[in-house]
């Protein structure tokens, strides 16, 4: 039986969303549209010190990033934490975070890409649901009125996800129910063998990645497989694998074919082309919550 996950309270009008950058640096002006939109949705916004700050590649030193995130985790007047952006750096601070106050006042932690490290940790170690969703940059240009940013709004307000996906020739039919897990493939694999290694038994796993060599993707899938993770799944949801790179000896398979081959021995349903990615197409998904995926003539993924 899947474990019982704890669900942080959904947001009400006038609640406060904090914005922090636990990994890469983000100029403050790039978060302006996000802040404005969150305010229009009826929330207060509290910008952390790491937003608009940079220490070379990072938004601050490890200590600064840790302190900023810790402060927002501890602050009972903060009801959700939206990560400004990903990049790299969350795993450098994850083991130093203190979750005592978070347990007393749980809150939604929002983001994707490098933030997969936080999601994995929350699910595995703390047993809390979290929100895989667009981050601050997704609000820019016309993003704030896109269905993807809108899906974040709905998720925060407590509406259940119901997504319909276009059919794909490599889809494998079937129905699965399970807790939804996932995120960025590189970061999921980065957790293997560590304290935040994810228990994927009976889960619906979703994966996405960007700018990787095809053979790296294959290697990561082989690693997941050899770690015994893929055979345990109830279903697989494949998001965007964009800006893929190949070597001078071409792989000879498309990215979808590589992913399909890695699970061809297993019986569970597989859905390709789900709008979760580093591009605009990035629907909010609640990690740790029970979902149902139906792959047939029509393809749906919905929270149950």
């Amino acid at each position, binding site marked *: 039986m899947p474990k019982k996950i704890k669900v942080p309270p959904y947001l009400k009008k006038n609640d406060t969303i904090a914005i922090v950058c636990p990994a*890469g*640096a983000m100029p403050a002006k790039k978060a302006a549209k996000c802040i404005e939109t969150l305010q229009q949705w009826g929330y207060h916004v509290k910008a952390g010190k790491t937003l608009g700050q*940079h*220490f*070379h*590649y*990072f938004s601050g030193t490890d200590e600064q990033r840790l302190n900023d995130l810790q402060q927002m985790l501890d602050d009972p007047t903060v009801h959700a934490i939206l990560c400004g952006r990903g*990049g*790299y750096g969350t*795993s*450098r601070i994850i*083991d130093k975070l203190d979750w005592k106050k978070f347990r007393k006042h749980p809150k939604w932690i929002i983001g994707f890409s490098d933030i997969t490290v936080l999601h994995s940790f929350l699910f595995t170690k703390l047993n809390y649901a979290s929100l895989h969703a667009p981050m601050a940059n997704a609000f820019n240009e016309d993003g704030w009125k896109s269905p993807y940013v809108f899906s974040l709004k709905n998720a925060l307000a407590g509406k259940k996800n119901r997504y319909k996906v276009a059919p794909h020739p490599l889809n494998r039919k079937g129905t699965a129910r399970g807790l939804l897990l996932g995120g960025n493939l*590189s970061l999921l694999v*980065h957790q*293997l*063998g*560590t*304290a*935040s*290694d994810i228990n994927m038994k009976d889960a619906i796993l979703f994966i996405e990645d960007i700018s990787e060599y095809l*053979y790296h993707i*294959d*290697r*990561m899938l*082989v*690693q997941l497989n*050899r*770690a*015994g*993770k893929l055979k345990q799944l109830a279903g697989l949801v494949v998001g965007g694998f964009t800006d893929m790179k190949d*070597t001078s*000896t*071409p*792989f*000879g*398979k498309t990215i979808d074919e590589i992913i399909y081959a890695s699970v061809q021995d297993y019986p569970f349903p597989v859905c390709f082309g789900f709008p979760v990615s580093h591009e605009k197409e990035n629907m909010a998904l609640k990690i740790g919550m029970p979902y149902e995926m139906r792959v047939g003539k029509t393809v749906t993924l919905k929270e149950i």
Partner: protein
Amino acid sequence: MNRKKFIKGLLATAGSTLLVNQLLAGTDPSLRGLVPQPPLLLPGDIIGITCPANPMELKEMLNTQRLLQMWGFKICVGNTVGQQWERFGGSDAERTADLQLMLNDPSIKAILFARGGYGAMRIVDRVDWSAFQQSPKWLVGFSDMTAIHCHVHTLFGIPTLHAEMASGFKQQETISTRSIRYLLSGNRIEYTAPAFGQNRKGTAQGILVGGNLSLICAMLGSKSELQTEGKILFIEEVNEFKYTLDRMMMSLKRSGKLSNLAGLIIGGVTATRADNEMTFPMSVEEIISEKVQEYNYPICFGFPAGHVPNNYALKLGVPHHLQIESTGSFLREIIAPSVVPPVQPIEDSTNNNLMFGHLPVNG
């Protein structure tokens, strides 16, 4: 050759006999110099060549063939050489079958992998290792072959050779290929590396394990995951972004692989720069040092092995003695006193190639 280095090598050797005696009296059986090793090669022995990863054309084999023959060995070229399936030297089934044939054939005394790239970890679970366990033979390679090194060490404890592959054989014998010949024929190598600012001084004894960092990390969570406790870990990497290096070192750290080492050896590590990102605020050495700063085992940087011009062959899975001093780093195999061969230096006519280290050899 550097006379001073050589004298130091001799002294270190005298020390090693004492050390082995102490170890033999100790409690750790893995350090008694008694880890059985695959048999040495004799003139006329056959070396098999196979492609567990990327493909290799037959015409690329000429140097390898010539040199191995000059060394007095015969060659068995596997079915995967000269073949290609997608990006590999054959399908998973074909690459497995080729390696299997060579592992099982008692007339093949060692297996030299054709080249790295990617693909070995796709077949390690398909291979039946039982014949190899019964009669081990030296498996020679690096880079992607780290998957095979890790698998064989963790599951069977059989030593392997981290060394240049067929693709790296030049027309003339190089330091890299000569060191293979030395180790396969039972000569010892006393490795030296120049002093390095970020080195941590000290002495360590332990079984040498490791290889390519990406592949060591790709084994995490699987049954071929390296056990590093009490061991000397060797890592090398080529052409990765600094943030990827940092992430991999974090993986090793968070999986506990760095906490109980006897020592750490860093071979060639090169990073590429991410043009689209701000610079990573640490050097490669800082990225590595930072992850192990809370421990106090010795650390050697700049060891001549990996994707570097002088890729010295290393016996993985075998106890080694590592000594890091202000003058440089010294590594040698721990050998039971009864089998210690005499060390005799040779003058090297291609001394220009000798960037680090030297190759004493018994006469």
